């Protein structure tokens, strides 16, 4: 495509009025060199930038892949060698990131514009503007000589941070070698390495053929020329200038050799560790004013390795021999070519995490337990590893089967082996610093029976999508809510396009099982925005009859969906759930819904939160009574209404709606109703009627697929004791004794003295609450015992919404002297 480049350049030259001149074209072995002259007059030099003549000549080298790849630009002279972004003395580095900076559509016009910008910046000395990350100098490295992964920070170890006299510093890199890859594990001073050696704390051989050794690191306080030396002579000369003469350089190499020999490192043969030296210069910068070490690695050639070996072997007593070896070494330094190894930086001080800004950063340093290693758990566990968790334990009792390979991250060779173990093995390979542990225990009958073990984690992810596990967690954490770790439970809809994650913080009333119940109820009657499709998918009412069995007759039902859908949904749920954990305003309990179906409308993901319930022991000691925030708000609203329309001393009450959960011995109160219109309300008693009550119960239980029904009765004892009167006992006995009534019912009484009672009504502080579960005992029913206590019509108010006609007795709220029935 050099014709295109040539044509574009010719056209530019024609309209440039002499500013651009095409001087010549040479094509050689597929590369076309276009020599151009540009008018560069008027570009001012400042801040030590390059000097430009009135016209400058450039060689533009166009390859066969133009315009997909940008041409290279060289100059014929070496006047600009040594300035940043001039490589090999003649090559101008125009593009730091060609994938975003080079636009093929702009062609030669774009190139000339870029060159012009480069020249202006280079002349102004602004190619490396202060306060921007430094572009480090270039060393011409090759994988042939091996590659080095540098992990530990140097931090304050560098000599240039304190303004002391020390300009050069020597350290040792403790390295691990696997094939041609070298990992720097830690930086040690000469004294530290000797101490460790004496303590027999340094081993040369590790598992799986890993070899350990020490490599010298020379830190100098000045930057080398932007272009690194290509010969040992140039390097030694430069180091001499900066305070490390040739003898000292050789001593560094020899000392490393001595140390490695003492440790027992293999220095010869095919398994020999490389003879290498690391060099650090202050040529990196992320923040203004803070110079960080730029590290390069020099791989000594074989002769150099031999000479340093000789140097450390020759005894100083043999003066003449020593002198000859020393001369040999100096000669070698004079003619050896430098071999630079490839450096892969992983030092936190010079790198930035690519997940910056992701909510998953919350996971960094956390201890995480993942229950279930399937389509949900396996991707989630992997995300946790990559996000930098400090500990990960995975549990699954199942084995890898052929059918799951199409969507779960296992391999053919894993078939028949335990999922958790295979997952842990694979995930352990992702990071050098973390080994994932696993267990094939049964979660319900094993893991959850000893909850104390689980309290060490920061996060438990229940990815089993198994109701047994969810109930097990609920039961295990019930007694130790405050210490129980944050818990995420996740599950997929029937086509793995929609999913829900629940998040319970430490101290939350409930976790997955409980939150899913709340969610199913709150989305049943009128689903909040975005929840309708999710609720229809996850809580179908009536339940879905056609279910998917992967191996009909021999398997549990599951959802359908590919690896792409399950991985996307599992990841989406994890991100949303962790962002709740990372937020500062999360309610103790949250549900997140993610809808990845193509037809989704409205906001996503969607989020609902719940405050903690008020939790009371039942007086019989058998149940835990939980009143959720909505029910509590309604109790207070109805009581405040009673005070407003009937005066402060008149009792009120109504039905409690929720459910008895026998598995966890809990009475859940989800909502309450006020007094039915045919109720009788007075300062002395509360008789609940029946008008409309069945309609309310039927309406709720139908809408919620029987999750919510009648659980009992509540009433108030304003300014009184929160305990039942004889009349209250009779009323409750009557309710549980009714034909077709519930087997047991909860009696809830709200009361309290004036400060407590008014505190509740006016400020929302809790009143005294009495709660007792009453079991059905048909024998207790006596005919006529609870006949409506009808007195004269003036003595009571009706229930419902009607306003009392006429006036209340003056000051009904504060009236004294009304006797209670107890």
């Amino acid at each position, binding site marked *: 495509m050099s014709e295109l480049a040539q044509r574009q350049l010719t056209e530019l030259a024609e309209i440039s009025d002499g500013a651009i001149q095409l001087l010549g074209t040479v094509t050689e072995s597929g590369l076309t060199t276009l020599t151009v002259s540009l008018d560069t007059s008027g570009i001012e030099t400042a801040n030590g930038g390059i000097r430009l003549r009135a016209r400058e000549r450039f060689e533009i080298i166009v390859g066969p892949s133009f315009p997909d790849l940008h041409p290279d630009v060289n100059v014929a002279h070496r006047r600009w060698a040594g300035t940043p972004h001039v490589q090999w003395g003649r090559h101008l580095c125009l593009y730091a990131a060609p994938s975003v900076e080079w636009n093929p559509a702009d062609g030669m016009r774009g190139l000339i514009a870029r060159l012009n910008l480069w020249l202006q910046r280079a002349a102004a000395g602004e190619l490396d503007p202060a306060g921007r990350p430094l572009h480090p100098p270039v060393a011409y490295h090759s994988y042939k000589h091996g590659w080095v992964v540098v992990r530990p920070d140097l931090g304050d170890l560098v000599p240039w941070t304190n303004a002391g006299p020390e300009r050069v510093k020597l350290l040792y890199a403790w390295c691990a070698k696997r094939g041609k890859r070298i990992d720097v594990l830690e930086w040690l001073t000469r004294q530290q390495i000797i101490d460790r050696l004496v303590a027999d704390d340094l081993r040369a051989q590790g598992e799986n053929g890993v070899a350990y050794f020490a490599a010298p690191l020379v830190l100098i306080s000045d930057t080398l020329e932007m272009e690194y030396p290509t010969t040992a002579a140039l390097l030694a000369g430069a180091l001499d200038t900066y305070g490390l003469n040739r003898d000292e350089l050789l001593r560094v190499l020899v000392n490393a050799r001595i140390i490695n020999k003492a440790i027992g490192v293999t220095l010869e043969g095919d398994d020999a560790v490389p003879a290498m030296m690391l060099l650090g210069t202050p040529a990196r910068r992320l923040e203004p004013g803070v110079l960080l070490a730029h590290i390069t690695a020099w791989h000594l050639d074989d002769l150099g390795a031999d000479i340093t070996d000789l140097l450390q072997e020759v005894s100083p007593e043999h003066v003449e021999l020593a002198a000859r070896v020393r001369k040999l070494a100096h000669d070698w330094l004079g003619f050896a070519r430098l071999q630079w190894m490839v450096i892969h930086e992983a030092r936190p001080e010079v790198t930035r995490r690519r997940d910056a800004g992701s909510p998953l950063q919350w996971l960094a340093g956390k201890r995480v337990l993942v229950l279930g290693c399937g389509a949900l758990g396996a991707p989630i566990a992997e995300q946790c590893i990559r996000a930098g968790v400090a500990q990960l334990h995975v549990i699954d009792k199942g084995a890898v089967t052929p059918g799951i390979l199409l969507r779960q991250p296992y391999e053919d060779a894993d078939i028949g082996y335990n999922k958790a173990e295979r997952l842990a093995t694979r995930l352990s390979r992702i990071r050098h610093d973390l080994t994932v542990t696993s267990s094939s225990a049964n979660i319900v009958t094993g893991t959850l029976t000893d909850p104390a073990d689980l309290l060490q984690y920061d996060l438990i992810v229940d990815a089993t999508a198994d109701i047994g596990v969810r109930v097990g967690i609920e039961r295990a954490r019930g007694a130790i809510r405050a210490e129980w770790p944050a818990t995420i439970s996740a599950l997929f809809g029937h086509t793995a396009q929609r999913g829900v994650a629940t998040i319970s913080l430490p101290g939350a009333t409930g976790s997955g099982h409980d939150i899913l119940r709340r969610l199913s109820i709150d989305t049943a009657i*009128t689903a909040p*925005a975005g929840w309708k499709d999710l609720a229809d998918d996850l809580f179908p009412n009536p339940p879905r009859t056609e279910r998917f069995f992967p191996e009909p007759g021999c398997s549990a039902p599951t959802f359908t969906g590919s690896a792409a859908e399950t991985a996307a949904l599992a990841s989406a749920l994890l991100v949303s759930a962790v962002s709740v954990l990372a937020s500062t305003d999360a309610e103790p309990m949250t549900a997140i819904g993610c809808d990845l179906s193509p037809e989704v409308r409205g906001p996503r993901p969607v989020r609902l939160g719940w405050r903690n319930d008020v939790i009371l022991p039942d007086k019989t000691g058998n149940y835990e009574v939980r009143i959720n*925030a909505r029910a509590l708000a309604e109790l207070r609203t109805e009581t*405040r209404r009673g005070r*407003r329309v009937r005066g402060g001393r008149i009792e009120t009450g109504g039905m409690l709606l929720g459910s008895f959960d026998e598995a966890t011995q809990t009475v859940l109160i989800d909502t309450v109703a006020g007094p039915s*219109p045919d109720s009788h309300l007075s300062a002395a008693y509360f008789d609940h009627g029946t008008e409309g009550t069945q309609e309310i119960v039927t309406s709720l239980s139908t809408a919620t697929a029987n999750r919510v029904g009648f659980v009992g009765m509540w009433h108030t004892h304003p300014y009184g004791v929160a305990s039942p009167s004889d009349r209250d006992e009779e009323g409750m006995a009557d309710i549980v004794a009714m034909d077709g009534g519930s087997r047991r019912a909860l009696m809830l009484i709200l009361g309290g003295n004036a400060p407590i009672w008014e505190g509740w009504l006016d400020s929302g502080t809790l009143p005294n609450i009495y709660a007792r579960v009453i079991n059905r005992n048909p024998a207790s029913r006596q005919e006529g015992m609870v006949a409506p206590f009808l007195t004269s019509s003036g003595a009571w108010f009706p229930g419902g*919404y009607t306003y009392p006609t006429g006036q209340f007795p003056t000051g009904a709220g504060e009236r004294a002297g009304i006797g209670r029935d107890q």
Partner: protein
Amino acid sequence: MSPRIGLALSGGGFRATAFGLGSLRALHDRNLLPQVTVVSGISGGSLLAAMWAYGPERFDEFDDSVTTLLRGGLQTELARRAFTPRAAGRAIASAVRALASKEGRSYSRTDALVDALSSRNFGAKLITDVTHAGIETVISSTDMRTGNAVRFGSALSASSPFGTILDEVTVAEAVAASAAFPVLLPALCRSYEFLGRDGDRRSERLSLTDGGVYDNLGLAPLLPGRSTKYSSHVFDLDYIVAVDAGRGRTERSAARFMAGRLAQSFDITHTKSQDSARSRIHLAREHAEVKGIVHVYLGMRDERLPMPLADLVPRARVQNYPTNFAPMRDVDLDAIAIRGEQLTRTLLNNYTPDLGG
């Protein structure tokens, strides 16, 4: 931080005032009134908004003041005030002047409404003097000359073409302007000194009529996504409670006379604009633009109530109550207010279970 609630009280004469009173009762019972940070009113709703925001501190006293006004009505008082010799003289003179100069009449029955409201405690107050701390008011009317909304409020009074109003405005004036429903009352003419967006001061004469001509729900200033560039009243809210005394669809029989037809065609346009405001509520809810929107709608079909109520006041009992300012009978007042309370309480419990408590 406790959630911020915006309360919109629609127009619709005393029907709206009584229905809104029921709503306020339910909000009071749930102890949500202290979380209301802005109340917006139109016409009958602005009357209620003003009586609450500028009225007695205690809820029961406020409640009494509203029921007393509703039972007594304003219509007779307006007629009497409009025909006192002094007022009549002014009215006739201004009607003659209006004919000559094409300007609006300067003393009208709407002026009588201003006087009637001014004679009450809340009406005599300046619009800046709200009773409850932390609450802002917006009382909207329409300027017939530019067709733009004129919004009076405790923080600011403004109309977008002219800028902010520099004069002191009384609550009575704002409410009367908002309540001058075209078919019932003439427009209220007032001159105000405006400070424009460009910093210029100018005086403009406005011809103010019912704020519900465009937006009878009073909802527009509360909706999310409004830009301060185009509107002075923009609020950051978590929840919106829109109390809407609209009656829902009913059969119309064609009016036989010109005046009736005029009123009827106005009614149709008016209904259309309310329907579009209602669909805007639906959209805002669908897109979760705020945490929750509760639309308390007098004309809601009874069977759509999320929880059955044994003694629900049916829509049919109240929907045909007229939208005027005539004295209300106790049975009508109770029926409309109780329906307002029932709907508000049930919908709040259903749509915003996390509010209050």
